[in-house]
């Protein structure tokens, strides 16, 4: 037994080398010709349920500032600094709940600034966001120095959007991993309120039908946001926020959204594949409801930033 020991050691060494090089065995087997078997778990007859875990997951992109800003810019509507929350309001946010809400509000404004490449204002907004993020112990995920450099030097503006967006995604993930999902939900609420507020301000100066439809389809988004927030309603601050959102929900009850289903079209051009959805979304609301929703979202947002 004693004399075999060195052999065992040598064998272990060879085994470790074999294991370390084994990954090359598993590379690049080209199975493109084989057909995909659709897993049984993908086949079902009833609509997918939208329970709390699903809504929790949805929270991650309930309201993207990039999409809101891209819509507004895409309609050739000029930038307006007055639409954004002033950074001078920073002192109004004192508790962790308030600061998370502010993180969402100013985060949305940052998306609006980035989309319009208004880098001269960006440093002010990222400074405020960084302070709020630090105060709720997520500042390490907000890459302030890189964002500041990109904005100051007007370097690669795509990177400015990328890093801003990634910072918010990391903050969201971290809060949820550390059982602080309440704050994550509040950030999402702030993003939604500010995004809808920006759209409502645009709606007052533009009669573009897409803006009107965007306001109306917030009924769908609020339909996901409210149940998410209600999951944390044992927090008194959250309960108060829900109470503030309820009148808006009641206004959206007067908005009728219907759908006509169609089969998506698949087009391949130069090797690039595009699927075009053929469903139609029809949003119907009367002028009174439209004006009341615009007024309601502006009143709510201004009260949240304590104007």
């Amino acid at each position, binding site marked *: 037994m004693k004399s075999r*020991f*060195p052999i065992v*050691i040598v064998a*272990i*060494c060879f085994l*470790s*080398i074999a*294991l*370390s090089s084994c*990954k090359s065995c*598993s*590379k*690049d087997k080209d*199975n*493109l*010709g*084989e*057909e*995909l*078997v659709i*897993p*049984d*778990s*993908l086949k079902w*007859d*009833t*609509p*997918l349920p*939208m329970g709390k875990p*699903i809504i929790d*997951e*949805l929270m*991650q*992109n*309930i309201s*993207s500032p990039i*999409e809101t800003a*891209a*819509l507004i810019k*895409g*309609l050739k509507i000029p930038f307006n600094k007055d639409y954004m929350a002033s950074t001078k309001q920073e002192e109004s946010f004192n508790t962790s709940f308030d600061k998370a809400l502010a993180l969402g509000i100013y985060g949305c404004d940052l998306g609006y600034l980035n989309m319009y490449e208004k880098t001269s204002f960006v440093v002010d907004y990222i400074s405020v966001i960084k302070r709020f993020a630090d105060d709720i112990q997520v500042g390490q995920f907000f890459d302030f120095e890189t964002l500041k450099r990109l904005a100051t030097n007007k370097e690669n503006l*795509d990177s400015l*959007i990328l890093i801003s*967006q*990634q910072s918010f*995604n990391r903050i969201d993930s971290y809060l949820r991993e550390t059982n602080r999902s309440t704050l994550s939900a509040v950030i999402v609420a702030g993003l939604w309120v500010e995004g809808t507020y920006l759209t409502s301000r645009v709606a007052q100066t533009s009669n573009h039908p897409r803006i009107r439809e965007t306001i109306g*389809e917030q009924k769908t*988004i609020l339909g*996901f946001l409210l149940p998410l927030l209600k999951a944390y309603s044992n927090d008194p601050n959250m309960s108060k926020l829900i109470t503030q959102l309820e009148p808006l929900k009641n206004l959206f009850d007067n908005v009728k959204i219907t759908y006509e289903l169609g089969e*998506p079209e*698949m087009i391949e051009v130069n090797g*690039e*594949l*595009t*699927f*075009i*959805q053929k*469903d*139609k*979304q029809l949003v119907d609301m009367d002028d009174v409801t439209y004006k009341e929703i615009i007024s309601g979202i502006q009143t709510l947002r201004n009260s949240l930033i304590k104007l």
Partner: protein
Amino acid sequence: MKRILLAIAIIWVGIAFTARNANAQSEEELVQICGMIAGEAQYLKDFRVKLDAGDPPPVQRIPILLKKDVKYRFTVCNSKDFEGKVVLQLFDNNRMLATTYVIGTGKDYPSIDWVCTKTGAYHLFFSFRDGKAGLAVGLLSLVGMM
């Protein structure tokens, strides 16, 4: 002598495994690769997918909200450290709307575009072909408004 040999063996094994892990692709690297494949589309979100081998193939399901009049790009990247090749499918309730792997042609696409005409909740399904184990990243990005 016995102790020295044992120490050498432990160090050797440690070095071998460290070297292996150093070469392994991290999820962050995959996100960067996906970003390059997505091109000029604006990053919105990334999804990290790691599934074990299985029959039927395991599936990771992720709900997302997509907005009307937005052209989205879905990009997928496989880790070279696993055999599995990822397939992304977009579902709306029980309808498959888009996929990175078209069974009819047998073609695999690193990215697909989706022109959305209905604001609402959708589901992304990630699985690995033939139920092999895999690690992959999916990227959602915004191409533009329609």
